[in-house]
Protein backbone atom coordinates (compact mmCIF):
# COMPACT_ATOMS: atom_id res chain seq x y z
CA UNK A 1 0.00 0.00 0.00
CA UNK A 2 1.19 3.47 -0.78
CA UNK A 3 2.54 5.80 1.86
CA UNK A 4 1.57 8.95 -0.01
CA UNK A 5 0.91 12.04 2.04
CA UNK A 6 -2.76 12.54 2.91
CA UNK A 7 -2.58 16.17 1.73
CA UNK A 8 -2.28 14.98 -1.86
CA UNK A 9 -5.19 16.35 -3.82
CA UNK A 10 -7.42 13.54 -5.01
CA UNK A 11 -10.89 14.05 -6.43
CA UNK A 12 -12.38 11.01 -4.73
CA UNK A 13 -12.61 11.18 -0.91
CA UNK A 14 -12.68 7.40 -0.69
CA UNK A 15 -9.40 7.09 -2.60
CA UNK A 16 -7.85 9.77 -0.41
CA UNK A 17 -8.96 7.92 2.71
CA UNK A 18 -7.78 4.60 1.32
CA UNK A 19 -4.31 6.05 0.73
CA UNK A 20 -3.99 7.69 4.12
CA UNK A 21 -1.60 6.28 6.74
CA UNK A 22 -4.40 6.04 9.34
CA UNK A 23 -6.43 3.84 7.03
CA UNK A 24 -3.37 1.74 6.26
CA UNK A 25 -2.92 1.21 9.98
CA UNK A 26 -6.61 0.30 10.43
CA UNK A 27 -6.42 -2.22 7.63
CA UNK A 28 -3.25 -3.73 9.07
CA UNK A 29 -4.88 -3.96 12.49
CA UNK A 30 -7.86 -5.81 11.01
CA UNK A 31 -5.79 -8.22 8.97
CA UNK A 32 -3.25 -9.09 11.67
CA UNK A 33 -6.15 -10.05 13.94
CA UNK A 34 -8.48 -11.80 11.49
CA UNK A 35 -6.13 -13.64 9.12
CA UNK A 36 -4.17 -15.68 11.71
CA UNK A 37 -7.37 -16.48 13.62
CA UNK A 38 -9.03 -17.75 10.42
CA UNK A 39 -5.97 -19.83 9.53
CA UNK A 40 -5.93 -21.28 13.04
CA UNK A 41 -9.61 -22.27 13.04
CA UNK A 42 -9.42 -23.82 9.55
CA UNK A 43 -6.31 -25.81 10.58
CA UNK A 44 -8.07 -26.98 13.77
CA UNK A 45 -11.22 -27.95 11.83
CA UNK A 46 -9.32 -29.89 9.16
CA UNK A 47 -7.20 -31.58 11.85
CA UNK A 48 -10.47 -33.01 13.21
CA UNK A 49 -11.63 -34.01 9.70
CA UNK A 50 -8.30 -35.68 8.84
CA UNK A 51 -8.11 -37.51 12.19
CA UNK A 52 -11.66 -38.82 11.64
CA UNK A 53 -10.59 -40.18 8.27
CA UNK A 54 -7.03 -41.39 8.83
CA UNK A 55 -6.87 -42.13 12.58
CA UNK A 56 -10.12 -44.02 13.13
CA UNK A 57 -8.70 -46.27 15.85
CA UNK A 58 -7.50 -43.29 17.85
CA UNK A 59 -10.82 -41.44 17.43
CA UNK A 60 -12.74 -44.56 18.49
CA UNK A 61 -10.65 -45.10 21.64
CA UNK A 62 -12.73 -44.73 24.80
CA UNK A 63 -11.26 -42.27 27.30
CA UNK A 64 -13.84 -41.63 30.03
CA UNK A 65 -16.38 -44.42 30.25
CA UNK A 66 -17.88 -44.60 26.76
CA UNK A 67 -16.71 -41.13 25.74
CA UNK A 68 -14.20 -41.38 22.89
CA UNK A 69 -11.42 -39.10 21.65
CA UNK A 70 -13.54 -38.42 18.56
CA UNK A 71 -16.39 -37.14 20.72
CA UNK A 72 -14.09 -35.04 22.91
CA UNK A 73 -12.35 -33.46 19.90
CA UNK A 74 -15.72 -32.93 18.22
CA UNK A 75 -17.12 -31.14 21.27
CA UNK A 76 -13.91 -29.08 21.46
CA UNK A 77 -14.72 -27.88 17.91
CA UNK A 78 -17.90 -26.39 19.36
CA UNK A 79 -15.94 -24.84 22.24
CA UNK A 80 -13.39 -23.28 19.87
CA UNK A 81 -16.15 -21.92 17.61
CA UNK A 82 -17.95 -20.30 20.55
CA UNK A 83 -14.65 -18.89 21.86
CA UNK A 84 -13.53 -17.44 18.52
CA UNK A 85 -16.92 -15.80 17.95
CA UNK A 86 -16.94 -14.17 21.38
CA UNK A 87 -13.27 -13.11 21.23
CA UNK A 88 -13.74 -11.52 17.80
CA UNK A 89 -16.94 -9.70 18.78
CA UNK A 90 -15.27 -8.35 21.93
CA UNK A 91 -12.17 -7.24 20.04
CA UNK A 92 -14.24 -5.57 17.31
CA UNK A 93 -16.48 -3.77 19.81
CA UNK A 94 -13.70 -2.55 22.10
CA UNK A 95 -10.58 -2.18 19.98
CA UNK A 96 -11.47 -1.96 16.30
CA UNK A 97 -14.79 -0.10 16.17
CA UNK A 98 -13.70 3.06 18.02
CA UNK A 99 -10.83 3.58 15.54
CA UNK A 100 -12.98 2.71 12.53
CA UNK A 101 -15.73 5.09 13.68
CA UNK A 102 -13.20 7.89 14.15
CA UNK A 103 -12.12 7.52 10.52
CA UNK A 104 -15.75 7.33 9.32
CA UNK A 105 -16.49 10.59 11.16
CA UNK A 106 -13.51 12.21 9.51
CA UNK A 107 -14.91 11.15 6.13
CA UNK A 108 -18.28 12.60 7.07
CA UNK A 109 -16.68 15.99 7.80
CA UNK A 110 -14.80 15.99 4.51
CA UNK A 111 -17.92 15.54 2.41
Amino acid at each position, binding site marked *: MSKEAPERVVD*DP*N*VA*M*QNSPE*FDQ*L*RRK*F*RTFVFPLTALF*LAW*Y*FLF*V*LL*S*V*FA*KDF*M*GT*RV*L*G*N*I*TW*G*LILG*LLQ*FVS*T*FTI*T*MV*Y*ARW*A*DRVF*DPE*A*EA*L*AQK*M*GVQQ
Partner: protein
Amino acid sequence: MSALLGSAPSLVPAATTVGNPAINIGIFALFVVVTLAIVIRASRNNRSAAEYYAGGRAFTGRQNGIAIAGDYLSAASFLGIAGAIAINGYDGFLYSIGFIVVVGILMIFYVIFGGMKGTTWVQIIKAVLLIIGAAIMTFWVLAKFGLSLSTLLGDATTASQDAGGKDLLQPGLQYKNPVDFISLSMALVLGTAGLPHVLMRFYTVPTSREARRSVVWAIWLIGIFYIFTLILGFGAADLVGAAAIKAAPGGVNSAAPLLAFELGGEILLGIISAVAFATILAVVAGLTITASASLSHDIYNTVVKKGTATPEEEVKVARIAALVLGAIAIVGGIFALGQNIAFLVALAFAIAASANLPTILYSLFWKRFNTRGALWSIYGGLVSAITLIIFSPVVSGKAIDPATGKSPSMLQGVDFHWFPLDNPGIVSIPLGFVLGYIGTVTSKEYNAAKYAEMEVRSLTGHGAETATHH
Protein backbone atom coordinates in the same frame (compact mmCIF):
# COMPACT_ATOMS: atom_id res chain seq x y z
CA MET B 1 -31.73 -31.96 12.06
CA SER B 2 -33.28 -33.46 9.00
CA ALA B 3 -34.57 -36.15 11.29
CA LEU B 4 -37.18 -33.81 12.71
CA LEU B 5 -38.81 -33.59 9.35
CA GLY B 6 -39.89 -37.16 9.33
CA SER B 7 -42.95 -35.85 11.06
CA ALA B 8 -44.71 -35.20 7.76
CA PRO B 9 -45.45 -38.88 7.30
CA SER B 10 -47.26 -38.93 10.63
CA LEU B 11 -50.11 -37.17 8.83
CA VAL B 12 -50.09 -39.73 6.09
CA PRO B 13 -52.76 -42.45 6.16
CA ALA B 14 -50.03 -45.11 5.95
CA ALA B 15 -48.47 -43.86 9.18
CA THR B 16 -51.46 -44.10 11.48
CA THR B 17 -49.53 -46.49 13.71
CA VAL B 18 -48.18 -43.59 15.75
CA GLY B 19 -49.58 -40.16 16.40
CA ASN B 20 -52.90 -38.43 16.14
CA PRO B 21 -53.41 -36.41 12.94
CA ALA B 22 -55.94 -34.12 14.62
CA ILE B 23 -53.39 -33.01 17.23
CA ASN B 24 -50.69 -32.47 14.58
CA ILE B 25 -52.95 -30.42 12.34
CA GLY B 26 -54.37 -28.46 15.29
CA ILE B 27 -50.94 -27.38 16.53
CA PHE B 28 -49.82 -26.51 13.00
CA ALA B 29 -52.99 -24.45 12.43
CA LEU B 30 -52.25 -22.53 15.64
CA PHE B 31 -48.77 -21.71 14.33
CA VAL B 32 -50.21 -20.52 11.01
CA VAL B 33 -52.78 -18.26 12.72
CA VAL B 34 -50.18 -16.66 15.02
CA THR B 35 -47.65 -16.08 12.25
CA LEU B 36 -50.26 -14.74 9.83
CA ALA B 37 -51.34 -12.19 12.43
CA ILE B 38 -47.72 -11.08 12.85
CA VAL B 39 -47.12 -10.91 9.09
CA ILE B 40 -50.21 -8.77 8.57
CA ARG B 41 -49.07 -6.43 11.34
CA ALA B 42 -45.56 -6.28 9.87
CA SER B 43 -46.90 -5.55 6.38
CA ARG B 44 -48.18 -2.09 7.34
CA ASN B 45 -44.87 -0.40 6.68
CA ASN B 46 -43.69 -2.28 3.61
CA ARG B 47 -43.78 0.60 1.17
CA SER B 48 -40.10 1.33 0.49
CA ALA B 49 -37.60 -1.11 -0.96
CA ALA B 50 -35.45 -1.04 2.20
CA GLU B 51 -38.53 -1.94 4.23
CA TYR B 52 -39.47 -4.76 1.92
CA TYR B 53 -36.03 -6.40 1.45
CA ALA B 54 -34.26 -5.44 4.64
CA GLY B 55 -37.05 -5.08 7.20
CA GLY B 56 -36.14 -1.38 7.44
CA ARG B 57 -32.72 -2.45 8.88
CA ALA B 58 -34.44 -2.14 12.22
CA PHE B 59 -33.96 -5.60 13.74
CA THR B 60 -31.73 -6.02 16.78
CA GLY B 61 -28.70 -8.30 16.76
CA ARG B 62 -30.49 -10.82 18.96
CA GLN B 63 -33.60 -10.97 16.78
CA ASN B 64 -31.54 -11.32 13.63
CA GLY B 65 -29.27 -13.91 15.25
CA ILE B 66 -32.24 -16.10 16.11
CA ALA B 67 -33.51 -15.68 12.54
CA ILE B 68 -30.08 -16.66 11.14
CA ALA B 69 -30.14 -19.79 13.28
CA GLY B 70 -33.65 -20.44 11.90
CA ASP B 71 -32.47 -20.02 8.31
CA TYR B 72 -29.43 -22.20 8.87
CA LEU B 73 -31.16 -24.98 10.77
CA SER B 74 -33.92 -25.25 8.24
CA ALA B 75 -31.70 -25.63 5.17
CA ALA B 76 -31.00 -29.24 6.04
CA SER B 77 -34.45 -29.93 7.46
CA PHE B 78 -36.30 -28.68 4.44
CA LEU B 79 -34.37 -31.18 2.36
CA GLY B 80 -34.93 -33.87 4.96
CA ILE B 81 -38.69 -33.80 4.53
CA ALA B 82 -38.37 -34.37 0.81
CA GLY B 83 -36.59 -37.60 1.67
CA ALA B 84 -39.26 -38.52 4.18
CA ILE B 85 -41.96 -38.01 1.59
CA ALA B 86 -39.93 -39.82 -1.04
CA ILE B 87 -39.58 -42.97 1.06
CA ASN B 88 -43.26 -42.77 1.83
CA GLY B 89 -44.30 -44.10 -1.52
CA TYR B 90 -47.70 -43.74 -3.15
CA ASP B 91 -49.77 -42.83 -0.07
CA GLY B 92 -47.27 -40.12 0.71
CA PHE B 93 -47.40 -38.91 -2.88
CA LEU B 94 -51.13 -38.23 -2.79
CA TYR B 95 -50.86 -36.51 0.52
CA SER B 96 -47.75 -34.50 -0.22
CA ILE B 97 -49.00 -32.75 -3.37
CA GLY B 98 -51.70 -31.29 -1.15
CA PHE B 99 -49.08 -30.51 1.46
CA ILE B 100 -46.74 -28.80 -1.00
CA VAL B 101 -49.56 -26.67 -2.41
CA VAL B 102 -50.75 -25.57 1.07
CA VAL B 103 -47.22 -24.71 2.18
CA GLY B 104 -46.52 -22.97 -1.12
CA ILE B 105 -49.60 -20.74 -0.97
CA LEU B 106 -49.00 -19.79 2.68
CA MET B 107 -45.37 -19.02 1.86
CA ILE B 108 -46.30 -16.77 -1.08
CA PHE B 109 -48.70 -14.90 1.20
CA TYR B 110 -46.04 -14.41 3.91
CA VAL B 111 -43.47 -13.10 1.42
CA ILE B 112 -45.74 -10.83 -0.61
CA PHE B 113 -47.41 -9.18 2.37
CA GLY B 114 -44.79 -9.56 5.07
CA GLY B 115 -41.61 -8.81 3.10
CA MET B 116 -38.35 -9.27 4.97
CA LYS B 117 -39.92 -8.14 8.23
CA GLY B 118 -42.68 -10.73 8.07
CA THR B 119 -40.37 -13.57 7.02
CA THR B 120 -37.90 -12.65 9.77
CA TRP B 121 -40.62 -12.91 12.41
CA VAL B 122 -41.79 -16.24 11.03
CA GLN B 123 -38.18 -17.41 11.16
CA ILE B 124 -37.71 -16.20 14.75
CA ILE B 125 -40.85 -17.96 16.01
CA LYS B 126 -39.89 -21.14 14.21
CA ALA B 127 -36.30 -21.13 15.53
CA VAL B 128 -37.49 -20.63 19.12
CA LEU B 129 -40.03 -23.48 18.83
CA LEU B 130 -37.45 -25.78 17.22
CA ILE B 131 -34.77 -25.16 19.84
CA ILE B 132 -37.19 -25.44 22.78
CA GLY B 133 -38.61 -28.67 21.34
CA ALA B 134 -35.14 -30.15 20.90
CA ALA B 135 -34.09 -29.00 24.39
CA ILE B 136 -37.09 -30.66 26.06
CA MET B 137 -36.44 -33.94 24.27
CA THR B 138 -32.70 -33.80 25.01
CA PHE B 139 -33.15 -33.36 28.75
CA TRP B 140 -35.87 -36.02 28.75
CA VAL B 141 -33.50 -38.50 27.07
CA LEU B 142 -30.62 -37.62 29.40
CA ALA B 143 -32.89 -37.97 32.44
CA LYS B 144 -33.69 -41.52 31.35
CA PHE B 145 -29.96 -42.31 31.53
CA GLY B 146 -29.28 -40.72 34.91
CA LEU B 147 -27.96 -37.51 33.22
CA SER B 148 -24.87 -39.47 32.17
CA LEU B 149 -23.71 -39.06 28.57
CA SER B 150 -21.40 -42.05 28.99
CA THR B 151 -24.29 -44.35 30.04
CA LEU B 152 -26.38 -43.17 27.08
CA LEU B 153 -23.54 -43.82 24.63
CA GLY B 154 -22.82 -47.24 26.13
CA ASP B 155 -26.47 -48.33 26.09
CA ALA B 156 -27.05 -47.06 22.54
CA THR B 157 -23.98 -48.89 21.25
CA THR B 158 -24.90 -52.09 23.06
CA ALA B 159 -28.45 -51.88 21.69
CA SER B 160 -27.09 -51.34 18.19
CA GLN B 161 -24.66 -54.27 18.43
CA ASP B 162 -27.27 -56.58 20.00
CA ALA B 163 -29.50 -55.91 17.00
CA GLY B 164 -26.65 -56.94 14.67
CA GLY B 165 -25.57 -53.36 14.03
CA LYS B 166 -22.23 -51.66 14.42
CA ASP B 167 -20.31 -49.91 17.16
CA LEU B 168 -21.77 -46.41 16.83
CA LEU B 169 -18.72 -44.85 18.46
CA GLN B 170 -16.30 -45.86 15.69
CA PRO B 171 -15.89 -43.22 12.97
CA GLY B 172 -16.25 -44.07 9.30
CA LEU B 173 -19.54 -46.01 9.37
CA GLN B 174 -21.25 -43.81 6.81
CA TYR B 175 -18.41 -42.22 4.86
CA LYS B 176 -16.19 -44.95 3.45
CA ASN B 177 -14.13 -42.86 1.02
CA PRO B 178 -11.75 -40.50 2.88
CA VAL B 179 -11.42 -38.01 -0.01
CA ASP B 180 -15.20 -37.76 -0.28
CA PHE B 181 -15.48 -36.96 3.42
CA ILE B 182 -12.79 -34.27 3.12
CA SER B 183 -14.55 -32.81 0.06
CA LEU B 184 -17.88 -32.68 1.91
CA SER B 185 -16.21 -31.10 4.96
CA MET B 186 -14.67 -28.40 2.75
CA ALA B 187 -17.98 -27.60 1.05
CA LEU B 188 -19.80 -27.41 4.40
CA VAL B 189 -17.32 -25.11 6.16
CA LEU B 190 -16.71 -22.81 3.18
CA GLY B 191 -20.21 -22.97 1.67
CA THR B 192 -21.87 -21.65 4.81
CA ALA B 193 -20.10 -18.34 4.21
CA GLY B 194 -21.72 -18.02 0.79
CA LEU B 195 -25.37 -18.99 1.29
CA PRO B 196 -27.32 -16.04 -0.16
CA HIS B 197 -30.34 -16.25 2.14
CA VAL B 198 -28.05 -16.22 5.18
CA LEU B 199 -25.93 -13.33 3.77
CA MET B 200 -29.05 -11.29 3.12
CA ARG B 201 -30.00 -11.51 6.80
CA PHE B 202 -27.21 -9.04 7.55
CA TYR B 203 -29.14 -6.31 5.74
CA THR B 204 -31.80 -6.38 8.42
CA VAL B 205 -29.64 -4.87 11.18
CA PRO B 206 -28.56 -1.22 11.36
CA THR B 207 -24.87 -1.42 12.35
CA SER B 208 -21.83 -3.68 12.22
CA ARG B 209 -22.04 -4.05 15.99
CA GLU B 210 -25.57 -5.45 15.71
CA ALA B 211 -24.45 -7.68 12.83
CA ARG B 212 -21.74 -9.17 15.07
CA ARG B 213 -24.17 -9.60 17.94
CA SER B 214 -26.45 -11.51 15.59
CA VAL B 215 -23.57 -13.84 14.67
CA VAL B 216 -22.81 -14.50 18.35
CA TRP B 217 -26.48 -15.40 18.94
CA ALA B 218 -26.66 -17.54 15.81
CA ILE B 219 -23.45 -19.46 16.61
CA TRP B 220 -24.60 -20.28 20.14
CA LEU B 221 -28.07 -21.37 19.04
CA ILE B 222 -26.86 -23.46 16.10
CA GLY B 223 -24.04 -25.02 18.15
CA ILE B 224 -26.30 -25.91 21.06
CA PHE B 225 -28.92 -27.29 18.69
CA TYR B 226 -26.35 -29.62 17.08
CA ILE B 227 -25.22 -30.84 20.50
CA PHE B 228 -28.90 -31.62 21.22
CA THR B 229 -29.20 -33.59 17.98
CA LEU B 230 -26.15 -35.68 18.92
CA ILE B 231 -27.88 -36.75 22.13
CA LEU B 232 -31.23 -37.21 20.36
CA GLY B 233 -29.54 -39.42 17.75
CA PHE B 234 -28.06 -41.77 20.34
CA GLY B 235 -31.31 -41.60 22.32
CA ALA B 236 -33.31 -42.67 19.27
CA ALA B 237 -30.82 -45.48 18.52
CA ASP B 238 -31.34 -46.85 22.03
CA LEU B 239 -34.98 -46.13 22.89
CA VAL B 240 -36.50 -46.63 19.44
CA GLY B 241 -33.86 -48.81 17.77
CA ALA B 242 -32.34 -48.68 14.31
CA ALA B 243 -34.61 -51.40 12.95
CA ALA B 244 -37.83 -49.62 14.02
CA ILE B 245 -36.57 -46.32 12.59
CA LYS B 246 -35.70 -47.83 9.21
CA ALA B 247 -39.03 -49.66 9.07
CA ALA B 248 -41.07 -46.47 9.74
CA PRO B 249 -42.74 -44.68 6.81
CA GLY B 250 -40.23 -41.83 6.87
CA GLY B 251 -37.12 -44.01 7.16
CA VAL B 252 -34.17 -42.35 8.92
CA ASN B 253 -36.06 -39.04 8.92
CA SER B 254 -38.53 -40.56 11.40
CA ALA B 255 -35.94 -40.87 14.18
CA ALA B 256 -36.86 -37.68 16.05
CA PRO B 257 -40.67 -38.01 15.74
CA LEU B 258 -40.53 -41.65 16.84
CA LEU B 259 -38.35 -40.64 19.78
CA ALA B 260 -40.84 -37.88 20.61
CA PHE B 261 -43.67 -40.42 20.58
CA GLU B 262 -41.63 -42.82 22.73
CA LEU B 263 -40.97 -40.06 25.28
CA GLY B 264 -44.11 -37.95 25.37
CA GLY B 265 -46.79 -39.73 23.40
CA GLU B 266 -49.18 -38.07 20.96
CA ILE B 267 -48.88 -34.55 22.37
CA LEU B 268 -45.07 -34.30 22.10
CA LEU B 269 -45.19 -35.97 18.69
CA GLY B 270 -47.80 -33.41 17.59
CA ILE B 271 -45.66 -30.52 18.79
CA ILE B 272 -42.52 -31.82 17.07
CA SER B 273 -44.49 -32.47 13.87
CA ALA B 274 -45.94 -28.95 13.88
CA VAL B 275 -42.46 -27.48 14.43
CA ALA B 276 -41.29 -29.47 11.43
CA PHE B 277 -44.05 -28.00 9.26
CA ALA B 278 -43.23 -24.51 10.51
CA THR B 279 -39.60 -25.12 9.59
CA ILE B 280 -40.39 -25.79 5.96
CA LEU B 281 -42.75 -22.86 5.72
CA ALA B 282 -40.16 -20.48 7.16
CA VAL B 283 -37.21 -21.61 5.07
CA VAL B 284 -39.11 -21.55 1.79
CA ALA B 285 -40.29 -18.04 2.64
CA GLY B 286 -36.67 -17.00 3.42
CA LEU B 287 -35.42 -18.36 0.11
CA THR B 288 -38.25 -16.74 -1.84
CA ILE B 289 -37.66 -13.27 -0.41
CA THR B 290 -33.95 -13.55 -1.25
CA ALA B 291 -34.66 -14.60 -4.82
CA SER B 292 -37.38 -12.00 -5.41
CA ALA B 293 -35.25 -9.20 -3.96
CA SER B 294 -32.37 -10.19 -6.19
CA LEU B 295 -34.60 -10.33 -9.28
CA SER B 296 -36.20 -6.93 -8.72
CA HIS B 297 -33.18 -5.06 -7.34
CA ASP B 298 -30.30 -6.55 -9.34
CA ILE B 299 -31.98 -7.56 -12.58
CA TYR B 300 -35.05 -5.34 -12.97
CA ASN B 301 -33.70 -2.10 -11.50
CA THR B 302 -29.97 -2.36 -12.29
CA VAL B 303 -29.97 -4.19 -15.62
CA VAL B 304 -33.37 -3.48 -17.18
CA LYS B 305 -34.08 0.01 -15.86
CA LYS B 306 -30.40 1.07 -15.44
CA GLY B 307 -31.06 2.17 -11.88
CA THR B 308 -34.01 4.44 -12.63
CA ALA B 309 -36.82 2.37 -11.04
CA THR B 310 -38.60 4.01 -8.11
CA PRO B 311 -38.73 2.11 -4.79
CA GLU B 312 -42.47 1.53 -5.33
CA GLU B 313 -41.82 -0.04 -8.74
CA GLU B 314 -39.06 -2.22 -7.27
CA VAL B 315 -41.28 -3.51 -4.46
CA LYS B 316 -44.06 -4.19 -6.96
CA VAL B 317 -41.69 -6.21 -9.15
CA ALA B 318 -40.37 -8.06 -6.08
CA ARG B 319 -43.93 -9.05 -5.13
CA ILE B 320 -44.72 -10.26 -8.65
CA ALA B 321 -41.41 -12.17 -8.61
CA ALA B 322 -42.35 -13.76 -5.26
CA LEU B 323 -45.67 -14.88 -6.73
CA VAL B 324 -44.05 -16.34 -9.86
CA LEU B 325 -41.16 -17.94 -7.95
CA GLY B 326 -43.61 -19.36 -5.41
CA ALA B 327 -45.68 -20.91 -8.19
CA ILE B 328 -42.51 -22.36 -9.79
CA ALA B 329 -41.43 -23.70 -6.38
CA ILE B 330 -44.80 -25.45 -5.93
CA VAL B 331 -44.58 -27.09 -9.39
CA GLY B 332 -40.88 -27.89 -8.87
CA GLY B 333 -41.63 -29.35 -5.45
CA ILE B 334 -44.23 -31.68 -6.98
CA PHE B 335 -41.76 -32.84 -9.64
CA ALA B 336 -38.93 -33.19 -7.11
CA LEU B 337 -40.93 -35.76 -5.11
CA GLY B 338 -39.06 -39.01 -4.98
CA GLN B 339 -35.71 -37.42 -5.86
CA ASN B 340 -32.55 -38.12 -3.91
CA ILE B 341 -32.01 -35.24 -1.51
CA ALA B 342 -28.24 -35.77 -1.08
CA PHE B 343 -28.04 -34.34 -4.58
CA LEU B 344 -29.60 -31.03 -3.51
CA VAL B 345 -27.50 -30.70 -0.35
CA ALA B 346 -24.26 -31.29 -2.26
CA LEU B 347 -25.35 -28.84 -4.94
CA ALA B 348 -26.32 -26.01 -2.58
CA PHE B 349 -23.17 -26.01 -0.46
CA ALA B 350 -20.73 -26.74 -3.29
CA ILE B 351 -22.18 -23.92 -5.42
CA ALA B 352 -22.12 -21.47 -2.50
CA ALA B 353 -18.46 -22.29 -1.79
CA SER B 354 -17.25 -22.48 -5.42
CA ALA B 355 -19.22 -19.68 -7.10
CA ASN B 356 -19.93 -17.16 -4.32
CA LEU B 357 -17.13 -17.37 -1.77
CA PRO B 358 -14.11 -16.57 -4.06
CA THR B 359 -15.77 -13.37 -5.31
CA ILE B 360 -16.76 -12.31 -1.79
CA LEU B 361 -13.23 -12.79 -0.43
CA TYR B 362 -11.42 -11.30 -3.43
CA SER B 363 -13.71 -8.24 -3.42
CA LEU B 364 -12.98 -7.61 0.25
CA PHE B 365 -9.24 -8.25 0.32
CA TRP B 366 -7.71 -7.96 -3.16
CA LYS B 367 -7.16 -4.47 -4.52
CA ARG B 368 -6.59 -5.64 -8.07
CA PHE B 369 -9.76 -7.81 -8.40
CA ASN B 370 -11.93 -6.85 -11.38
CA THR B 371 -14.97 -7.75 -13.48
CA ARG B 372 -13.35 -10.52 -15.50
CA GLY B 373 -12.04 -12.16 -12.33
CA ALA B 374 -15.52 -12.07 -10.80
CA LEU B 375 -17.21 -13.45 -13.93
CA TRP B 376 -14.69 -16.25 -14.41
CA SER B 377 -14.83 -17.23 -10.77
CA ILE B 378 -18.64 -17.16 -10.50
CA TYR B 379 -19.37 -18.92 -13.80
CA GLY B 380 -16.37 -21.27 -13.50
CA GLY B 381 -17.26 -22.28 -9.94
CA LEU B 382 -20.94 -22.67 -10.81
CA VAL B 383 -20.44 -24.67 -14.02
CA SER B 384 -17.71 -26.92 -12.59
CA ALA B 385 -19.73 -27.68 -9.43
CA ILE B 386 -22.89 -28.51 -11.43
CA THR B 387 -21.00 -30.54 -14.07
CA LEU B 388 -19.13 -32.61 -11.49
CA ILE B 389 -22.38 -33.33 -9.61
CA ILE B 390 -24.16 -34.43 -12.81
CA PHE B 391 -21.34 -36.89 -13.53
CA SER B 392 -20.97 -38.00 -9.90
CA PRO B 393 -22.29 -41.18 -8.28
CA VAL B 394 -25.01 -39.06 -6.63
CA VAL B 395 -26.79 -38.83 -9.99
CA SER B 396 -25.99 -42.21 -11.54
CA GLY B 397 -24.12 -45.47 -11.14
CA LYS B 398 -24.16 -46.42 -7.45
CA ALA B 399 -24.38 -50.14 -6.79
CA ILE B 400 -27.87 -51.45 -5.97
CA ASP B 401 -28.53 -51.67 -2.23
CA PRO B 402 -29.68 -55.25 -1.50
CA ALA B 403 -31.92 -54.02 1.35
CA THR B 404 -34.08 -51.77 -0.85
CA GLY B 405 -33.41 -53.26 -4.30
CA LYS B 406 -32.70 -49.77 -5.62
CA SER B 407 -29.57 -47.79 -6.39
CA PRO B 408 -28.98 -44.88 -3.96
CA SER B 409 -28.26 -42.69 -7.03
CA MET B 410 -30.86 -40.23 -8.28
CA LEU B 411 -31.33 -42.04 -11.61
CA GLN B 412 -31.98 -45.79 -11.74
CA GLY B 413 -30.68 -48.18 -14.39
CA VAL B 414 -28.13 -45.86 -16.02
CA ASP B 415 -24.49 -45.19 -15.26
CA PHE B 416 -22.72 -42.24 -16.87
CA HIS B 417 -20.64 -41.16 -13.89
CA TRP B 418 -16.92 -40.51 -14.28
CA PHE B 419 -16.31 -38.24 -11.28
CA PRO B 420 -15.61 -40.53 -8.30
CA LEU B 421 -16.82 -38.31 -5.42
CA ASP B 422 -20.31 -37.49 -4.12
CA ASN B 423 -19.31 -33.89 -3.40
CA PRO B 424 -17.42 -31.76 -5.96
CA GLY B 425 -16.04 -29.25 -3.40
CA ILE B 426 -12.44 -30.44 -3.29
CA VAL B 427 -12.13 -29.71 -7.05
CA SER B 428 -14.63 -26.91 -7.73
CA ILE B 429 -13.75 -24.67 -4.75
CA PRO B 430 -10.02 -24.36 -5.59
CA LEU B 431 -11.03 -24.00 -9.27
CA GLY B 432 -13.29 -21.04 -8.44
CA PHE B 433 -10.40 -19.32 -6.64
CA VAL B 434 -7.87 -20.08 -9.41
CA LEU B 435 -10.22 -18.85 -12.18
CA GLY B 436 -10.88 -15.65 -10.23
CA TYR B 437 -7.12 -15.09 -10.03
CA ILE B 438 -6.42 -15.84 -13.71
CA GLY B 439 -9.38 -13.76 -14.91
CA THR B 440 -8.19 -10.79 -12.86
CA VAL B 441 -4.53 -10.82 -13.92
CA THR B 442 -5.38 -11.25 -17.63
CA SER B 443 -7.60 -8.14 -17.66
CA LYS B 444 -6.28 -4.59 -17.37
CA GLU B 445 -9.64 -3.19 -16.20
CA TYR B 446 -9.55 -1.76 -12.71
CA ASN B 447 -11.78 0.78 -11.01
CA ALA B 448 -9.74 2.38 -8.23
CA ALA B 449 -12.59 4.57 -6.98
CA LYS B 450 -15.02 1.64 -6.66
CA TYR B 451 -12.51 -0.47 -4.76
CA ALA B 452 -11.66 2.49 -2.51
CA GLU B 453 -15.36 3.05 -1.79
CA MET B 454 -15.86 -0.59 -0.95
CA GLU B 455 -12.78 -0.99 1.20
CA VAL B 456 -13.43 2.22 3.11
CA ARG B 457 -17.04 1.20 3.66
CA SER B 458 -16.20 -2.34 4.73
CA LEU B 459 -13.59 -1.25 7.28
CA THR B 460 -14.97 2.04 8.62
CA GLY B 461 -18.70 1.69 7.90
CA HIS B 462 -18.70 5.08 6.17
CA GLY B 463 -21.51 5.32 3.60
CA ALA B 464 -23.49 2.33 4.87
CA GLU B 465 -27.26 2.80 4.82
CA THR B 466 -28.88 3.52 8.14
CA ALA B 467 -32.06 2.19 9.69
CA THR B 468 -35.35 3.65 8.56
CA HIS B 469 -37.31 5.33 11.28
CA HIS B 470 -41.05 5.60 11.52
